[in-house]
């Protein structure tokens, strides 16, 4: 069973700690995506699993076996690098077979594995070419093929699509998804692109500055973020954050008044300990959760700066009376040509001043 377990894993470069105790449980056959802004430690974590970086603290287990001191090649993993890391002087066929040839794998078996990988990735007709003569997408396939040939228990991907253009990225995303179904192997995938994370993952690990902020299924993160960072990171365009204040409480929950708009009050049912009246809070509203006036809990008047038409939907870039920027998603047909618009808030999230979710 190819589970991957990270138990309080720490990474230090010199005295500089970049991963502060990561706990992750990847199940057999699961597709887990590490996502987070640049420099948050995703690659470092992945490279520790691969064995390319030492583990400064904690334990990593693959298939139930602690691998802290196991050589990279003996961990049952294969890695696809962001830069592809193909051997430039070898043909595609040689790239795929190099590892097996060097370790004395029987030729018949090597040929079988290479052929199968080429078939799965549809690169059979490229076998004699050098990487230099391949397109970005083809190189990426070869890099993935080289991983498949190893027949690993766990695939590790480090931003494999970030060097491709937008269209190819979508196409390869679908292929990787298909690959995951076909091979049934455990996959860990690093990206800073939340769309990739949302579309590929069984579960997402959201990281920030060496901490794991939340682990969950894509829709759980979307519907139920633990904090303001996750709320802002998952979903596109980003969730809007509007300053507010607790002004009281009624039968349905706490009442929040939006800064600068005394008349806009939102009532939020909270099951946890309710914050004190007068506390500042942050109200999070996704662009798609603004409705027409009167449709929701509270109405809000905003001034429109820019309108982006994408065809079916449009995005209104606007400001509240208090100067908070908000993005509002609308059906293209329902975009008014006034400079002010009243919208309702159909659904919102409350965060305390530290960014923790109030619920």
């Amino acid at each position, binding site marked *: 069973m190819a589970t991957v377990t990270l138990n309080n894993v720490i990474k230090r470069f010199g005295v500089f700690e970049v991963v502060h105790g990561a706990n992750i449980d990847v199940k057999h056959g699961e597709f887990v995506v590490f996502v987070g802004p640049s420099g948050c430690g995703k690659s470092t974590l992945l490279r520790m699993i691969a064995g*390319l970086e030492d583990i400064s603290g904690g334990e990593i287990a693959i298939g139930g076996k602690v691998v802290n001191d196991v050589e990279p090649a003996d961990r049952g993993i294969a890695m696809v690098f962001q830069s592809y*890391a193909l051997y*430039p*002087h070898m043909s595609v066929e040689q790239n795929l077979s*190099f*590892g097996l040839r*060097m370790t004395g794998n029987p030729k018949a078996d090597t040929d079988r594995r290479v052929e199968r990988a080429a078939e799965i990735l549809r690169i059979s007709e490229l076998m004699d070419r050098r990487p230099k003569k391949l397109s970005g997408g083809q190189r990426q396939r070869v890099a993935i093929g080289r991983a498949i040939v190893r027949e690993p228990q766990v695939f590790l991907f480090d931003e494999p699509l970030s060097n491709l253009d937008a269209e190819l990225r979508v196409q390869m995303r679908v292929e990787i998804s298909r690959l995951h179904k076909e091979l049934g192997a455990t996959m860990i995938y690093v990206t800073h692109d939340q769309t990739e994370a949302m579309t590929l993952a069984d579960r997402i690990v959201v990281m920030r500055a060496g901490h794991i902020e939340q682990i969950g299924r894509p829709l759980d993160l979307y519907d139920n973020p633990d904090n303001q960072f996750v709320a802002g990171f998952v979903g596109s365009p980003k969730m809007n954050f509007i300053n507010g204040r607790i002004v009281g409480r009624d039968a349905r929950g706490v009442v929040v008044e939006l800064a600068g708009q005394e008349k806009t009050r939102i009532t939020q049912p909270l099951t946890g300990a309710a914050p004190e009246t007068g506390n500042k809070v942050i109200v999070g509203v996704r662009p798609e959760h603004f409705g027409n006036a009167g449709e929701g809990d509270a109405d809000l008047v905003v001034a429109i700066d820019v309108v982006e038409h994408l065809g079916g939907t449009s995005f209104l870039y606007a400001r509240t009376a208090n100067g908070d920027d908000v993005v509002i998603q609308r059906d293209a047909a329902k975009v008014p040509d006034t400079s002010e618009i009243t919208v309702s808030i159909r659904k919102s999230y409350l965060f305390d001043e530290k960014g923790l979710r109030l619920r």
Partner: protein
Amino acid sequence: MRNRNATAYRFLTPYLLIFAIFWVWPIISSFMISFQATRTVPWRFAPGFNWGRLIGDPAFFNALKNTLLILVIQVPVMISLALVMAVLLNSPLLKARGLYRFAFFAPVVVGEVAYSAVFRLMFNLDFGIINKLLNSVGLPKIDWFSNVTPAMALIMIAVTWRWAGYNAIILLAGMQSIPEDVYEAATLDRVSKFKQFFYITLPLLKPVIVFCLVLSIIGTMQLFTEPFLITERGGPGGGTETLGLLLYRQGFRSLNFGYASAVAYTMAGLAIAITLAQLWLTREPK
């Protein structure tokens, strides 16, 4: 457009003049001189005089043999050594890399006369450190300067000492341009460091190695300083005389410029031929 070119050429004139007088003209003139009999004044045109002599001259064949022998032994040894040095310099385990890099490069900037003098002292028969070291490990002394084989070896050692570090620095630059993740991929593929060197580093370094080889071949074809200064004008008895030395002896000691020019053209022709052959042998397969 024409006007602009004219202005550009006017700015280039001083350089072009110097280039024409001190480069182009000597090249043409020496070619013409090589067809003249220059032993007697006035010189007269005699196409077969120098070139004919070349074909049958034992001194020329001796110098050619010595030069090629040094080329065939010293260049591969030096490049191999430079590769080893580059690998060591590239090792992440190495401390004070900058210092070593400087130390390896230093021989090139040391004055030729100074370095030759030091080599003569080090290899001195009775009180040189090399013979003392040989003695201390139970080997007999070697008379480096009066026997042909040790004298040739000495030349090769000296040239290697002087240029190995230089080539190592060039090779190191090449090695550092190979992306790290290629090696990481190989490590994950269970390819040992040793095999990584032979199957990844060497092939990817090939253009740089070829570059070093070409530089060294051209340099060795013109070899002059070491046999002139260390083994004292190609001694013992012409045993280390190179083409460069023969040229010098003919041109500037015997003032036989015609023959010296023919030797010079032979040297250049050989260097070009060997380099082309070498480029052809190491060309990228289609």
